């Protein structure tokens, strides 16, 4: 079981509140570009929140040439000191949930059991769940499918 933020895209209304809560809490400013969660538009008209679901495969960890990404209790964490901002992790992630911003890789490391993004979401499109491997795999599969595999 791993604590992770799991989106339910069909409920997402494309309001970007999660990105604002995330960036203000972690970067001290409201900036969707700096959030650990992104919101795209689905072909069906609803929003598409993209966030790391802490998938059990974590290809990002394997792709990192410096070992800057490590798994701690199932959560993939970034050691900013070792990150050389090469972007290998971004390319490796099937939904682009790791991004290089301001010279270092950033990703959702699940702030708490009640993180700002989940708290602010008006529709329950984001949940924080202590989830088994299958559930996180399924969540990733859905996001891959909805983004057309490209992130």
């Amino acid at each position, binding site marked *: 079981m791993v604590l992770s933020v799991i989106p339910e895209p069909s409920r997402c209304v494309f*309001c970007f509140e999660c990105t604002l809560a995330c960036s203000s809490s972690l970067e001290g400013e409201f*900036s969707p570009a700096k959030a650990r969660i992104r919101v795209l538009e689905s072909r069906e008209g609803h929003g598409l929140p993209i966030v790391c679901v802490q998938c059990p495969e974590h290809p990002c960890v394997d792709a990192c040439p410096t070992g800057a990404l490590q798994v701690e209790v199932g959560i993939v964490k970034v050691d900013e000191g070792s990150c050389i901002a090469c972007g290998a992790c971004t390319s490796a992630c099937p939904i682009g949930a790791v991004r290089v911003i301001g010279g270092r890789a950033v990703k959702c490391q699940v702030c708490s059991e009640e993180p700002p993004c989940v708290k602010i979401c008006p529709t329950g499109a984001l949940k924080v769940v202590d989830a088994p491997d299958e559930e996180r795999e399924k969540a990733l599969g859905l996001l891959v499918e909805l983004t057309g595999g490209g992130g």
Partner: protein
Amino acid sequence: MYGYTGKILWVDLTRGKAEGKDLNPGLARNYLGGMGLCMRLLYDLTDVDTDPLGPENVLIFAAGPVTGTSWPGSGRLQVAAKSPLTGLAGYSNSGGHFSPHIKYAGFDAIVVVGRSEKPVYLFVEDGRAEIRDASDLWGLDTWETEDVLRERHGEDVRVAAIGQAGENLVKFAAIVTGKGRVAARAGIGAVMGSKKLKAVALRGEGGVKVADPRGFEEMLEEAMRKIDGSPFSETYRDLGTPLLVLPMNVIGRFPTKNHYMGSFERAEEISGEKIVWGYRVAKRACFSCRFHCKNILKLGDTIGDHPEYETICSFGSNILIDDPEFIIRMNWLSNRLGMDTISLGGTIAWAMECYERGLLTREDTGGLELKWGDRDLVERLVRMTAFREGFGDVLAEGVRRASQIIGRGTERYAMHVKGLEIPAQDGRAQKSMGLAHATAARGADHLTHSTFLDEVGFEEAIRERYGEQYLPEMADRFSPKYKGIMAKDCEDLTAAVSSMVICVTAGWLFPPLFYWEDLARLYTVVTGIEVSVSEMKRTAERIVNIRRAYLIKHGVTRASDSLPERFTKEPAPAGGCKGQIVELDQMLDEYYEARGWNVETGLIPRGKLIELGLEDVADDLARLGRLP
């Protein structure tokens, strides 16, 4: 600076130059941003001899200090220019996702002057701006334009564009953001077209910092609780403004047959429930809004925004059409071509009434028979208007000018104030709306004053805001009493909220959850500029008064604050407000009184302008002989 980015992007299309300049902190404090900033700049940069479609007009896209934060409803855009439809102050406000990206791209506002020789678009990214060739975009509709620019600049680029109507200088052309959120009123899309500016595309990785994050967080949590707990949130979140169709029809406020009456016998067919529930594929929010009052509908292979209440009237009751799919399609068509559905619908309704009365004939229309409820005809007229083909060239002038061109008494059926077509409120059913239409600076409008408190009887809010002594009359939609007092306060609050820029229907004017104390505190925690409730109120009044002063310069007086006789002399023939008229004079007296304006003339006394720190404006008006 906190809240603000501290920069304004100045674009001169004649010289092909775009550069960022510092935002004057005094301007920010005295006019806040959004509406306030727009009205001060419009006053300073244009004058009585400015041709609205000439290069000397300005076009302003303004965000505000709260834009780009997570405050609910703070994603709104304020646009302004001198209006080609009214020749007065033109302003228009839209939702969507464009405005916050002005700030993320590094600016509080974009001010466009001049005129390009060739079609161009403006691309703004992270503090830089480029004027680019738009020859390949000219002639495309707004949806196509958006698609091309997103393909070219990336999916996260945000676009505001004009359609063919703006290119063809249709007097009520709109600026469309994100395909469906529209700054529609007062013909600002024609101003953009006159400048040969096809679109503005934005992308920014910047952010907005607030001065007191903890204070902001506390206010936000309380606001979230209030919004989620409001009894009005549930239906509003579900249906958005289309929810109004049935209740407004019951009270006789749903314009029918060119505003002849306010109840439509087939309203059930075009109710918000029918339209939204019948075709919805997704819920949708404007940027940073937990009300998420928008819906995405699907018809055939097309998906797009729901028609708002206003549009349901324009393409429904007001021209006697009861077909929800037709209304959805006409909304999309108007958005693609880029036209204000209120003005467009009002102009078509006028033509239909005049045709029925024999004042317009097939000779005027190029052989077309303008029969009420004829859907094919309406669709043709919409296209003909956007391209100014045949009789569409007359309609494209808007109802005031069109009726002057035709003459023969058709002016009597032109439902407008100051040249702007009347929106979907029958003032005979809700008196405060009659006053709002008559006095709004941009012409007939409900959202300059946003007097919603007598709509469904918000007695509690009235008691809290104004006091027991105004009940029951202020809450009674048929009573003209105290409506001037209410309209003054609601107009001030709307002006300040639209300067932040926050949506008026995200808990400020509807539902009435937040008030002056909240606004002053919000401004303070966001900007770090300590502002009291009394200063905030005074600032709001300053904004309203400079907007009025601009009108006064152009010759507006009490006589201009009028309504078509249909509302003041013809008692409603049937429906929920049967027998009612708008008692305008009585309300005007009270309104001017509450404003401290001269009751006989509607002019602003020097003392009032001085009190608001508008000495320069007082001097201008004195020079023109327009002080009372």
